[in-house]
Each structure stands twice: as C-alpha cells, then as structure tokens.
C-alpha cells in the first residue's frame, strides 16, 4: 500500500514539475528553426558548453514520456490491487488514474494538451491489441462456435444500433431531450457507433472473471467480429448524413447492404492473404532467424493498414491474419523466435491497453467537449443496457434450437452484462465531422459516459454477479476424504469421457478440412522439418525430455555439484520418488535425455522452459536426512494439495498477461510420463513376456545396449501402431529431431548408478564440465554397428 502511494505521489510530482516547463516551452519559441545544424545560430554571444534544446526532441520525448507514465500507472494499479482488495478491475482503476493525470495537466495548462486523438488510437494503439488477441486465439474453440459468434456479431450489432438509434429518436420527437439540432439519421449514426461491443474492454474485464471457455469465446469473438458491421454501419450512416435525407432512396440502401458484404469479406480475405504471406516468409527464413520475429509484427501491421487504406474492415483483417498464421508461424519459427514473439506481443498489447485506458481518463478532463443533456445521456445508458439484454436473450433463444450444446440462462445473463463499450466507440465519435453533425460534443460526452459506466461500474459488479449467480450449491460442509477423492475422480472421468466423445464437432466437414489442410496447405506453408515434427505426441515427448534434462541439470547445480564429491556415500539419486521403484529401469531409456550436454546444441531454447517449478527429478544426496515419516500426516491436507487437477478447473485460457496453456505444466508432464510409461510397460510385458532387468548396471555394457535396442523395437512398434499412416516415424529420420532412444543407444544416459563415478573426482576444483569430459572418454567407442542396423 505504501509503495503504491509513493509511486502515485512520485508521478504526480514528476508531472507537475516536468509538464509545466514543457508546456511553457511549447507555447513560446515557436519560431525557432528546427534544423539541428542551426542550433547555434541564435544570438551567439559566446560558446555555450551545454545547451538546453527542447524543440529538437519534443515529439519523441513527449511520446516516450507518456508511455513511461502509462507504465508507471499500470505498475501502481497492480500494486494497489495486490495490497488492497481487488474490487475495481484494472481498466477501471486506470481510467480513474487518467482522471487524476488529466486533472494535473489541466491544472498546469488550462487546456487539455494531451488527448486521445483518433488517428493515434486507430493507427498506433489498437492494431497490436487485436493482433495479440488473434494470435493467441484458441482456434478450435473459435471455429466450432463460429456460427453463433457470427449471429451475435452481425445481427446483435445491427439490432443494437437500430433499436438504440430509433428509440432515442422517438424520445427526441417526444420532446424529452429538449432542443437539439439532430435528425433521425444522426441518431442512427450515433446508434451504430455506440452499439459495438469493444474487444479491449471485454478482455480487460473478463480476464479477471473466470468464466467457462464457451461463454468467453462467444463474447470475445463477437467483440472482434462486430467491427465489420460497425465500420459499415458507421460509414454508411456517415455518408447518408452527408448526402442529406432526401437523396436516400432504395438504391443507396442496397449499396449500403452490399458494402457490408464487401467490407466484411474483403477484410477477412485480405487478412488471410497476409497470413499466407507471413507463413511463406517464415518458411524461408532458415538462415536468418533473428528477423523472423520482426516479420510477424510488420506483416500484421501491414494487414491492418492495407485494409484501412482500401476502406475495408481493418480489425477483421488483422484478426484473420493472426488466426490463420498462428499454426504455421509457430511451427516454422525457431523456438527462440516463438518465445520472443509471444513475449513481445504481450508487452505491446499490455502497454497499448494501459495507454488507451489512461488516455480515456485524461480526455475527460476537458471543458471544451462537455455538453450535458440529462435526457440524452440517461436514456442512452438505459437503452444500451436494456437492448443488449433483450438482444442477447432473443438471439440465444433462436440459436439454442440449432446448437448441440445449448447456452444456459446464466451464461446469457453474463453475456448481456458483458456487453462493454470502450475506446473504439470513443474513437469513432471523435472522428465525426463537426460541420455535418453540430451536436458532436454531445455525442462525445455521451459516449464517454457510456464507456465509463460500462467499464467501471459493470466491471466492478461483474465478478460479484458471476459468483452470486453460480452460488446455488449446498453449503460446503466438511467433506470426507472419500468424497474429496471421488469428486476429483469424477472430474477426471468427465474430462476423459468428453474427450472420447469429442467435445468439438467431429463431423465430415472438420475431418475433410483437416485432411485437406494436412496435405496441401501445410505442404505449402510449413517448413519440411516442421511438418515432420508436427506429430503432436512426439513433440510433447520431446519437450518433456528436454524439460527433464534441464531440471536434472539445474537441480544438480542447485544442490551444488560439489555435493556430489563431498559425500562419501554414493550420490543416491532418488528416482524412486519420481517414478516409483518398478520404473527405474525403464526410466533411463525414455526420460533422461542428455542432449543438453552436447556442445553443439540444436535449436531448443532453454528459456522456454519454466524453471521455477518443483524439479521433477530430485537428487536425494543425503538420503538419511530425508526422514519424513511424520506420524501425524494430515491426509486431508495432502489430498487437497496433491490431487491432480482436471482440465475442467482450468477453463480460462486467454489472458492479457500470461500465456500458459491449460493445465499446470508440471502436472501435465507427470501425468503424461506416467501414462506413456505404463502403456509401454504393459505393451512390453505383453509382447516380450519378460520383465526388464532390475539393475541395468550389473550387465555388461554390450548387453545393455542390446537390451536397450530390443526395448526400442518394442516401443517403436507400439507407437507405430498408433500412427499407421506415417510411413517413416519421425525419430527414425536423421534430422535434428531428438530421438531419445536412439541417442541412448550410442551414448548411454546418465543412470543413477553411473553417478558413482563422480565420487573419485573429489579433488577437482573445476566446474561440472570436467566431470562430463571425464565421462565422455568412456564412451568414445560408440557401437556404430548397432546404430546402423537400426536405420
């Protein structure tokens, strides 16, 4: 709390001290020549060692200062939310902070010098947010609900625009609003710009309220796709207002409707074209991978600008660019580039969103724009709210007749309450032409009030509303152990059965598309290497091996490699804890992949691996010290902590600030390892009819490799059965793809017992590398023949 207050005060002081001279500098000395070379020509009386030169850096300096201020604002808001109860959503707090900042600037200058100008908003702040949203869009979910999303986006927005506009006009004719210089067309124009649900606001508020994924994708998808409608409606009515009432006839109306088709589909198509371009680009960057990440942003921005230039829907263009290129770009690019892009995208989007909300607040503190007409404003708020509810319920009622999974009433309530308006509406309002629309300021004021109302008030009450609506369960009495266990088991069972049933539609169309996409589109847009590694199961296998290796190393380093040499006992690596005793022999073949130790490491990035998790491998150096047979184990506590969570408890995938995927990654890793191991085990024992040897190191090394090879045969054939269509299994290729078992053949992985050899090295004071080198020598004689046989 103290820190956030300090930050706020600091910023206020900074601004007051800094902004004042800034503004004074702005107003005076306008005639100074801007050319840097003429810097010294003004009234030279002697050599000035240092000069204060504001004008040359003015524009970039102001821009960067505001970015900096916005960042500070976000920081203090987050701190506030951590130390004080988070009731107000971040966006609301940012707006309020904007008010304060606006007040400071106003106080210094008596005029609002820093406003949110529409060009700034539309060209510099909005594109990256949309790109971020579409790049991380869960595609499967999106496309399976696309029908509903389109219905809400198109018909919902049209309904909102029409009803709000007409109702307001009706009320105006009835005289409730007093004397205004407005006609029906202008009301309709206003209706169209206030009708659209705003993606920025939706993300900002829904991120903190964890609703189920279908509901989220419906609202979110609608907010993205309704831009097509909004742009058309706005332009159409703007043109109509310019034309004037009498000139509008059926022809113009048809042109309006036709323009919707062109704008929406044209924008989407353009987005797809840019996505293809981007995928092809990333496909060709084999030798210069450092600029790949840049291409994503550049091409995305180009998509936006091109669509805007052609007066198509720019948001739709960027949306489809991001949605379509996701898969190929992620497959083609280097892992480091992928991480870079993801991080940078989040940074930019976060920053833009912060700036948008702060400026939305600042813009309010400006006496020039405020026109208060109680009737107009209150009626607008009322109508916007009511017609949203009516619209959603009507459309859902119709949709539920066709959907396989009906949308429940609670979801509908949340959806209608989540119809937030945001900066896009304000931007459109600010772009209105004052000559044609004399009441522009009234419209701006109303729009701002609607935005504040929805973002702040509805944002605050969204979370309590969601919780209140869901509370219908009986009181949470003390559950017995068996109830807790079974509750979790049921979750898992449900998740599994849902997967078996295929939650997402699995009909002829999706299968046909998948086949088409696999054969033709991937061939065109993906790198050949990426295509081979596309095998999902294998790639997870590969990633888990990498993670295991890294965890192994980091754990070893953390415990201090010196710990290896200091103990007289054998370094007792307690794999049992990780794998269970019956699996220790199976373990080295699959899990411990020491490719990390190789000096020419291929393209995996260690940075992509989360390191601050509980290490999956525990090096139990001093086994005796691990006496943890505590007698009073709280079984309840244990269950609470350690039961695996099922997918259902991790519904909300999209987030502004994080991009972890559904379950906690180490849990997934553990479960997956176990399942794969037990499957391989059962297959092995079924086919080979023999249990693997308990202690591998007792065998001579030749026998060991032989046994390892047999095991690999078995594992290969089992996995080959899973994928009969693959003519060549990915790990039989001699590519860079890591084939853990193959590697294990010509260099044995580090088994627990081999670590004994580290003990004699106690005299060495070198780093770990020396241990490695020592061990490497033993394996110089690679069993090449075995290796070639396998191929």
């Amino acid at each position, binding site marked *: 709390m103290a820190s956030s207050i300090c930050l706020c005060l600091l910023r206020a002081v900074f601004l007051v001290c800094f902004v004042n001279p800034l503004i004074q500098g702005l107003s005076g000395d306008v005639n100074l020549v801007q050319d840097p070379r003429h810097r010294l020509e003004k009234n030279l009386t002697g050599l000035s060692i240092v000069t204060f030169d504001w004008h040359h850096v003015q524009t970039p300096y102001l821009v960067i200062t505001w970015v900096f201020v916005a960042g500070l604002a976000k920081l203090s808001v987050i701190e506030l939310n951590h130390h004080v109860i988070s009731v107000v959503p971040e966006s609301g707090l940012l707006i309020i902070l904007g008010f304060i900042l606006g007040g400071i600037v106003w106080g210094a200058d008596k005029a609002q010098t820093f406003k949110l100008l529409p060009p700034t908003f539309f060209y510099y702040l909005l594109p990256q947010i949309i790109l971020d949203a579409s790049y991380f869009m869960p595609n499967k979910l999106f496309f399976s609900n696309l029908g509903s999303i389109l219905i809400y986006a198109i018909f919902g927005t049209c309904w909102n625009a029409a009803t709000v506009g007409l109702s307001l006009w009706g009320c105006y004719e009835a005289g409730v609003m007093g004397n205004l210089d407005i006609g029906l067309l202008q009301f309709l124009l206003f209706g169209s710009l206030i009708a659209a649900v705003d993606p920025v606001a939706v993300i900002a508020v829904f991120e903190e309220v964890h609703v189920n994924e279908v509901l989220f994708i419906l609202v979110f998808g609608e907010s993205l796709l309704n831009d097509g409608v909004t742009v058309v409606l706005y332009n159409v009515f703007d043109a109509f207002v310019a034309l004037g009432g009498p000139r509008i006839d059926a022809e113009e109306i048809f042109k309006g409707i036709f323009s919707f088709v062109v704008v929406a589909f044209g924008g989407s198509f353009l987005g797809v074209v840019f996505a293809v371009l981007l995928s092809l680009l990333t496909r060709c960057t084999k030798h210069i991978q450092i600029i790949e990440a840049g291409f994503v942003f550049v091409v995305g921005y180009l998509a936006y600008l091109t669509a805007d230039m052609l007066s198509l829907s720019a948001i739709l263009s960027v949306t489809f660019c991001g949605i379509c290129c996701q898969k190929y770009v992620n497959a083609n690019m280097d892992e480091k580039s992928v991480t870079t892009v993801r991080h940078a995208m989040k940074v930019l989007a976060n920053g833009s969103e912060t700036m948008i909300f702060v400026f939305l607040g600042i813009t309010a503190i400006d006496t020039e724009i405020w026109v208060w007409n109680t009737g107009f404003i209150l009626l607008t708020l009322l109508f916007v709210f009511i017609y949203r509810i009516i619209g959603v319920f009507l459309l859902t009622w119709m949709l539920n007749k066709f959907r396989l999974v009906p949308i429940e009433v609670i979801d509908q309530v949340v959806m209608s309450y989540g119809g937030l308006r945001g900066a896009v509406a304000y931007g459109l309002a600010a772009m209105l032409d004052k000559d044609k629309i004399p009441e522009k300021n009234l419209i701006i004021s109303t729009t701002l009030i609607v935005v504040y109302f929805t973002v702040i008030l509805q944002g605050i009450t969204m979370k309590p509303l969601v919780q209140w609506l869901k509370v219908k369960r009986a009181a949470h*009495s003390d559950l017995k152990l068996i109830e807790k*266990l079974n509750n979790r088991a049921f979750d898992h069972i449900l998740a599994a059965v849902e997967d078996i049933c295929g939650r997402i539609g699995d009909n002829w169309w999706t299968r046909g598309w998948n086949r088409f996409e696999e054969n033709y589109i991937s061939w065109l847009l993906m790198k050949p290497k990426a295509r081979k590694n596309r095998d999902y199961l294998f790639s997870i296998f590969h990633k888990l091996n990498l993670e295991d290796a890294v965890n192994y190393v980091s754990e070893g380093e953390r415990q201090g490699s010196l710990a290896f040499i200091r103990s007289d006992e054998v370094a007792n690596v307690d794999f049992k804890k990780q794998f269970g005793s019956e699996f220790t022999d199976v373990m080295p073949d699959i899990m411990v992949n020491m490719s990390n130790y190789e000096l020419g490491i291929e393209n995996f990035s260690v940075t992509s691996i989360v390191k601050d998790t509980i290490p999956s491998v525990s090096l139990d150096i001093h086994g005796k010290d691990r006496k943890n047979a505590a007698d009073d184990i709280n079984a309840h506590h*244990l269950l609470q902590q350690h039961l695996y969570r099922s997918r259902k408890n991790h519904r909300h995938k999209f987030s502004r600030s994080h991009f972890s995927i559904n379950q906690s990654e180490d849990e997934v890793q553990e479960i997956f390892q176990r399942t794969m191991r037990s499957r391989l085990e059962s297959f092995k024992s079924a086919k080979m009819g023999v249990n693997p040897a308990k202690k591998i190191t007792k065998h001579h090394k030749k026998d060991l490799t032989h046994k390892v090879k047999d095991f690999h045969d078995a594992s290969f054939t089992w996995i080959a059965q899973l*994928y009969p269509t693959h003519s060549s299994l990915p790990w039989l290729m001699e590519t860079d793809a890591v084939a853990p078992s193959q590697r294990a053949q010509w260099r044995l992985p580090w088994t627990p017992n081999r670590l004994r050899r580290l003990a004699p090295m106690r005299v060495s004071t070198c780093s770990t590398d020396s241990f490695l080198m020592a061990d490497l020598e033993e394996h110089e004689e690679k069993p090449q023949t075995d290796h070639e046989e396998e191929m």
Partner: protein
Amino acid sequence: MGSTSSTLLKIPNVEVLMQETGFSPAHIIRLHDRFKALDKEGRGHLCPQDFGAIKELAMNPIGDRIIGAFFSPGKETVDFHTFVKILAHFRPVDKDRPKEPNSPEPINSRSNKLKFAFQLYDQDKDGKISRDELLKVLRSMLGMQVTEEQLESIADRTIQEADLDRDEAISFEEFRKSLEKVNIDHKMSIRFLR
C-alpha cells in the same frame, strides 16, 4: 435433412439403441460420426490403440482405466452399440421420467452412474474396493510429491471412513452411502448428451 435419416438407417438396430439409451437421433448420428473418426482404419469396431490415439486422454491420470471400462472382460474390441451404451451413462438424468413400475432402470440413472464409477476402482470385479485397488487409484491421482507412506495412510483413513462393516474393503453399498451428499447428476453428466 435427407442425410439424417439415411445415416440413421445405416446403423443397425438403431431403434433399439435409441430406446435403451434414450439418445435422440441427432445424438446418435453425432456419436456415430465420432465413432467413425476414432476408427481410423474403418474396421467397424474400436480397439485400445484407437482410444490411445486421443491425445488428451494421455494427460488424464485415470485415462487408461476409463479406456479399459469400454472393453468388457475378455473382449478386445468395442462396437458401436457398446460404445453408445457406455456413453449413455453420462447422459443427464431425465427429471420427468414417468415411473413405470416394471421398466428397467435407465442407463443414466444415479445408481447406474455410481456403478460405473465403482467399476473403475474395482478392477478385479469382486464387488469390493480392496486396499490395494484403492492404493492404485490414489497413486495415479496424486502427484509425485506424495510418498508411499503418506499414500498408505490416506488409503487407510479413507477405508476407515467409508467401511461400515469392518471388512477392510468398500462394497458398492458403502460406496453409494458415502457419496449420498454429492450431486451425482451434476458431476457425472455431460451437458451435450442431454
């Protein structure tokens, strides 16, 4: 839609199936599509590897047990009827079902759902969940941080809580009794199979 009725006709004994399970034609068709999608080689029945190909199941701690539940003991394949019948367990309970005295209990009744769950624990099908079976389930559902001793103590306490006749095992009746407060309909039903 013309395709609806023609697809329905292709499935043998569809009327009987619909009556037994209570699925609507739309659901049967959807499940049939899914069945065909899983049955990649078009053999008309599924084997364990087909289930194994579902990637999400590998990330489910009891995924393999559930796969096993589809295969009756001794059989290596699942045909469409069995597939649908097993999935019928997860249909939400019909609240307004008229209570005819002589008709058999529907597959998705509360007690049948519980029986399905019971069978997942009771692998040797002796009607009781023994301590070992419980240990196995716990092991698969708990993270790696839990040691063997902790596991055993949890299992012991669980049996203690639920076991009423002191035979060191949990019978179906005891199982059902211990879960009477749980809303089984909500926990073991999938919405879209309504």
